[in-house]
């Protein structure tokens, strides 16, 4: 009875809690995508986590403990190995994009140099704005990568939530 009353109270409190404003955490040096470790004393992260470091994508696997397989495996029928393979594919695509970006930068370098000029022209007429000469193929690849990133983050959030409910 008391437990049910406590649970109902928690539900009502959470429903009316103000939103938590997520602010950037200042950290020295480079900023990494850092899902908070469950154990503050340990630097190990459980389960495969899709991370981005600079221009690189890589997978950081956990401590190899099979009991720490996250819920992300349910998102990918093949399990963590399919996530790893997909991340490798995305990494290869990422490198290809970097190679193409180098060419793109040369192409749009002049355009960027005249960006302010084109902005002024844009105000007076419908001149082409600042733009990228990006192909649809590259745009699709980027969308696919961002979608995979979104799914990975959502899977991580779901895993944390399930762990929270399990306590």
């Amino acid at each position: 009875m008391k437990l049910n009353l406590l649970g109902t109270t928690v539900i009502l409190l959470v429903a009316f809690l103000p939103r938590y404003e997520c602010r950037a955490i200042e950290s020295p040096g480079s900023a990494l995508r850092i899902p908070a470790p469950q154990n503050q004393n340990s630097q190990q992260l459980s389960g495969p986590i899709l991370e981005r470091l600079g221009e690189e994508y890589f997978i950081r696997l956990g401590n190899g403990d099979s009991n720490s397989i996250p819920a992300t495996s349910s998102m990918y029928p093949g399990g963590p190995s399919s996530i790893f393979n997909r991340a490798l594919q995305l990494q290869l695509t990422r490198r290809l994009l970097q190679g193409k970006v180098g060419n793109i930068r040369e192409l749009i370098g002049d355009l960027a140099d005249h960006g302010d000029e084109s902005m002024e022209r844009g105000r007076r007429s419908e001149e082409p704005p600042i733009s990228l000469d990006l192909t649809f193929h590259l745009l699709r690849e980027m969308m696919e990568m961002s979608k995979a990133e979104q799914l990975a983050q959502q899977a991580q959030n779901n895993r944390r939530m399930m762990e929270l409910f399990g306590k």
Partner: protein
Amino acid sequence: MKVPPRAQLLLFLVSLSSRMGLSRYIEVKTLSRDVSHLSVCFLYILGCLDMLSTEGSFTFVASRPQLACATFVIAEPSEVIGLELSDVNIDCRAGDFIKMFDGWVLKGEKFPSSQDHPLASHQRYTDYCSSSAAGSSSRSSQNVAMVFFRIHGEDSGFTLTVKKLHNPFPCNIMSQSPEGSFTMVMPHQRRNCSFSIIYPVEIRLTELSLGQAKSNELIPQRKVWSACSGSGDYVELLGGNGVDTSHMFPVADLCFSLSGLAQMKIGCDNSVVRLVSSGNYINRVSFQYRLLDRDTLPKAPENSLDNFCSVE
């Protein structure tokens, strides 16, 4: 009355999701106030050319002069994007700039097009250097936004915070995937709305309701038009190889309500369902789309002089 644990859990989940009007995701951020040892605030590194589809803070630091960079931001169809700049360390006088754009720009073409966007072209840009206070935040009118930036100095940079906000009546949507379904509703608004899919797809219109009058007045007899452009409210399917819908080719249009199925294969880089509304009625169109495989792409007629992607 004893409440079973399952009902408590369901009530908890419903209460969380109802705060945002979303039924798909539950924000863990709300929980973090209760569970202090969990941090759900992520810091990401932003690349010179990047695409973002998640909320969070993204930091760009130039390791070398970066003269032409852009970040595409995309959200779910029923969301708009809030962008905020912070920790900006650039030299505007040296030619650095950070400009947020309400939409996407690709190869000189804008999405949404100038015809479909409520703001003038110059109003869609938010320049940080023109006003650091007003130019540090922006909110998009649709589910896509973009940031252009140029930074000369090493170790200069900025932090971009992306937030997604619910949009109850989305208009002008860029699909993030080549397959899915969507229902576009335009209630008494004089607006043209486009749903853009940057893939060759087969589109199936499953429901089309046009011209529901405001009151119970008699609906006047309509003339049969050879094209829908004169009928006021209609749906058109467009195909093309750019993102600007005003530069795309109309492949079909529907003027009257549809109760059955209508489908079309559009073998173009960009396939668009566009709803044109006069504001006099409540219009609604539902459709499904799926990616066309290479072998199912409509074959273009040989020796064709038409500069147009294949349609079937």
